[in-house]
């Protein structure tokens, strides 16, 4: 796989901090996301990765700092507004619409990006999304499950669906929180394959939080290592692998 990317930053994260009571969960975190890259975010449990995501996507309001999308400061935007402008995400815990079919899950994920709310009221229920959605279902090898209720799928399939939902609207950047978490070995290769496919063929830009090192080192172009809410280092997978500070953090030197 070629790991070449443009140098155009699409998302700029600057000085994000978030404190819960006496716990400084995220401390002055800054990084850029370049168009077309996969950026890995790693770090031990409780180092603030998920809190960072929640700050970037609007679920939490950070105490400090800003996030820019294509040069526009979106720090004050609501989560749906950020989503409509191209910041998609998944959550650490699986979040799908269990009582809806796989197809409807994906349509829900795609529909708010089309037309205004008033126009959507008078659009056909499928909104012309059928082709696009079926195409994605096909690529994720879930064609036989398209009309199945999402709640009836296996955990691995649900995890895939969750990831697909973040990507169906072709977001500027997709923030994926542990796409491989809890996925068994056979499915794991599948998830990795789909993510790489979307990046290489569709140019999808992704920020991925992951605990599975093999998985993230194989996928990411660049990796940000976090520890105790701060960015410890940033670099290519090789640089990160060989950095003594990273080893120290993971061996519990603190």
């Amino acid at each position: 796989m070629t790991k070449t990317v443009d140098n155009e930053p699409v998302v700029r994260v600057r000085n994000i901090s978030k404190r819960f009571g006496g716990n400084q969960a995220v401390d002055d975190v800054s990084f850029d996301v370049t168009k077309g890259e996969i950026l890995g975010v790693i770090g031990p449990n409780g180092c603030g990765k998920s809190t960072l995501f929640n700050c970037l996507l609007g679920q939490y309001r950070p105490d400090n700092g800003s996030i820019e999308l294509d040069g526009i400061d979106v720090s004050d935007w609501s989560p749906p507004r950020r989503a409509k402008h191209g910041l998609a995400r998944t959550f650490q815990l699986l979040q799908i619409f269990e009582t809806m079919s796989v197809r409807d899950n994906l349509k829900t994920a795609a529909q708010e990006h089309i037309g205004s709310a008033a126009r959507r009221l008078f659009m056909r229920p499928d909104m012309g999304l059928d082709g696009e959605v079926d195409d994605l279902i096909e690529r994720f090898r879930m064609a036989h499950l398209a009309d199945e209720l999402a709640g009836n799928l296996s955990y691995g399939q649900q995890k895939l669906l969750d990831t697909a939902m973040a990507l169906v609207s072709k977001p500027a950047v997709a923030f994926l929180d542990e796409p491989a978490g809890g996925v068994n070995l056979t499915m794991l290769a599948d998830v990795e394959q789909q993510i790489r496919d979307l990046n290489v063929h569709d140019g999808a830009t992704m920020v991925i939080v992951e605990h599975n090192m093999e998985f993230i080192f194989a996928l990411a172009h660049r990796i940000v290592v976090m520890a105790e809410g701060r960015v410890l280092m940033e670099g290519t997978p090789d640089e990160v692998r060989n950095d003594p500070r990273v080893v120290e953090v993971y061996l519990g030197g603190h």
Partner: protein
Amino acid sequence: MAESVNVPQSKAADGSDALDQPDFENRRDKIAIVDRGRLSPSLIALVSMLGAAVAVMPVGRAGFDGVIGLWFLSVLLLVGVNVAVPLDTRNGQMVRWISTATFVAFMMLFPIGKSGATMTDFGLFAIFGAVVVGMNLTQGFAGQVSLAPAAFLGIGSYTSVLLDMGEEVTVAGVTVDLPDLPFLATIPIAIVVCMLLSVLIGFPALRVRGPWLAFVTLAFSLLVFLVLNNEDGLTRGSRGIRVLRNDFEIFGIDMLPTHNFYYAGLFYLFFSLTVVWWIVRSPWGRALKAIRDNSGRASSLGVDVRNYTLLGFAVGSGLAGGAGALYARQVEYIEPRSYFVNQTIDFFLATVAGGLGTLAGPLIGGSLITLVADYLRFTGDWYRVWFGLFVMVMMVVAPEGLAGSFNRFRAWVQKRVDS
């Protein structure tokens, strides 16, 4: 180089823990109890049957004549067919439309040979049915509890009646000459007034997810009652207003006699059902369902949770307002007491007992609080006790309401037939 990160390698990656994954393959199948915004003909047929049963029940009210008997049998047949035929097939589609047509025809032809008293009941059923249809949009589809439908019914009634009288009113020392608009023109005004008011009170209440809308609408109901009761110069207070029905003609037909006025209510009921059906089958319906399923996820995918729930609440309130305009003409006398919170409780019970999140549920619920309630009058004030008990038992054994139970029954029968 790889050994430096050996420690953090996740357990799943080295395979040792892969077998400890919980067995998610054997999850219990989930049944989608809420019908997904589809017109469920069997339920509508069930309503027809209920209506027919109510019509033939008491001796001396309508009488059991051949026509009713025929209706009864055909509706019974339709229910049977509905239970047996899966809706997603072509035959199912046909059954769907035939049942709907049967229901419409039944409601249209029902007044023939009926007494004025029966038609008053059915007129009230149509009007209150529309309120419950609106409440079901707010509660069943948008997932927010509004405790103000009776208040909006009242606002609709007073708005419509006051704009129809052409009299002087005094509010806060200012005397205003109100116009004498035709009755039909006051209905959309009542709807719009209620929608605007509901946006006004819903906007702050829906800022955060939670039961806040219920609290705010409850306070609003009490406030509306106080205003209606005390603003003597505007509403004539507790003395109420005798409503003059003097200007309601459509295509030269006088709509005021009880039999004809029933059609006005019926048309409004169909209108409400169409509005809700339209919203639920449009992409909005999918967004509303997603919000009920998992609002956090919906929001992260671009679904503006607040706007969608607010609109669901506003449309539901608007439908109650328009129903209020008709209600005032149906009962010919309006007073603040008719719009107190206890009326809301009736609507609430009807919505829940009928079946939240279904299209036919409100019709069943509406018939419970008007038609069935009328036959429980002999119990005096006890009827609310019986009705309340009934709903409590239902909440325990069938929380999805009568319509939901029926859907479940149909699913059960079809599973039996399949295997």
